[in-house]
């Protein structure tokens, strides 16, 4: 029960003011360590050469692109069930972070794909799924931006997030099926986190992943605070206009 008390905007602001400095420092330290370690102090892969260094950006950002959507889904459900305003605003705050993560994953993926597969873009199921996820993020944010009344916007975007999640999963299966159906047996060597990655690459990768996770948290905390302040400003102005 105690966790719900942070659903109160004021309490949430106090909490975020307390934890944010630590979170910022930790996350930036982790991201920097992971990336610097990965960039300067890891050997080249015998097959992929130095492009393997891209993994320290690509995998963490892809991970957070998906997790950001999960977090939005959770926050949307909490808003629909318990009507906590902070929850709705947190979902709104997370979307742009998710978009940037998706874009990083796509761009680094393309830059990695070019030397490895000989093409910037392949309609590989995983890449395609990210493109679809990107579109879902855009639609979600556009809907937030289009609706004036904050409560209606929260309701509509929450339902959209729910419906979108179902269709995102469906699309994932559909895309898998589609590509397999097209070119039987072509497998593109996409590095999938720890499985194919040796220990020398693994430690900095984990640090980068933790760093991206913390950075996501810090950004969402901070941006939720921003949304709360904007909302409070609006509420105060509306009250003034009434009297």
């Amino acid at each position, binding site marked *: 029960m105690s966790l719900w008390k942070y659903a109160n905007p004021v309490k949430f602001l106090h909490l975020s003011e307390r934890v944010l400095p630590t979170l910022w420092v930790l996350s930036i330290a982790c991201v920097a360590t992971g990336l610097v370690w990965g960039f300067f102090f890891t050997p080249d892969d015998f097959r992929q050469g130095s492009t393997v260094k891209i993994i320290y950006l690509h995998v963490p950002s892809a991970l957070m692109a998906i997790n950001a959507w999960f977090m939005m889904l959770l926050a949307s459900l909490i808003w629909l069930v318990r009507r906590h305003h902070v929850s709705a605003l947190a979902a709104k705050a997370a979307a742009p972070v998710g978009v940037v993560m998706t874009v990083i994953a796509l761009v680094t993926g393309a830059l990695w794909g070019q030397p490895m597969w000989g093409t910037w873009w392949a309609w590989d199921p995983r890449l395609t799924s990210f493109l*679809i996820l990107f*579109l*879902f993020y*855009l*639609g979600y944010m*556009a*809907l937030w931006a*289009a*609706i004036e009344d904050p409560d*209606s916007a929260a*309701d*509509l975007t929450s*339902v*959209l997030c*729910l*419906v*979108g999640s179902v*269709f995102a999963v*469906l*699309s994932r*299966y*559909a*895309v898998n*099926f*589609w590509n397999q*159906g097209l070119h039987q047996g072509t497998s593109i060597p996409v590095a999938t986190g720890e499985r194919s990655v040796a220990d020398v690459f693994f430690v900095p990768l984990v640090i980068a992943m933790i760093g991206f996770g913390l950075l996501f948290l810090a950004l969402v905390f901070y941006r939720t605070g921003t949304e709360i302040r904007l909302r409070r400003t609006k509420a105060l102005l509306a009250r003034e206009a009434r009297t």
Partner: protein
Amino acid sequence: MKALLLRDLRLAFRAGGGFGLGLAFFLIVVMLVAFAVGPQAELLSRIAPGVLWIGALLACLLSLDRLLALDFEDGSLDLLATAPLPLEAALSVKALAHWITTGLPLVVVAPALGVLLNLPPQGFAWITIALLVGTPALSVIGTFGAAITVGIKRGGLLLSLLVLPLYVPTLIFGAEVARRGAQGMDVSTPLLMLAGITFGVLACMPFASAAVLRVNLR
């Protein structure tokens, strides 16, 4: 419910030109694609299933923004929401009316346009079946999009942005059925998936649509 269906159909015929507009649009898309990719019969026959699906998708999208917006502007939706008919049922009926005026005619003429695109003979039955099974899902999903954007001025573009990604699974499985059918391959898996999506969407989507419409009406 019958009354609402008849009213929507009657309005579509009197004001919207009925079947005509969607079909003309469908024809134009097919023709433009042929112009764009060149007249090679072999190439056209290979992309025919996909072109027909894209045409169906766009023709369906074209009329979506009027699906609820007109009823919203003249107050009919408020009155329908206070009528004994559940809003879920009303939206299902409106989706059905939309399908009858846009989806069904496309299903009927798709084989004819298949001829223009050199669709292989064994593909005709499958493109028709794929469209018949898949287009109801397009209308129902589109109704959700229309319900979510109904209060927004100039919501047309937003509607496309919201709805088109939701069309991805239907498009993939639908086009796959048509393509495999045209190549004489086994279509059972994509056809089952396509039917599954359509039935799932028919069963669940009206609740989501009604929920968002209620939000937009308050």
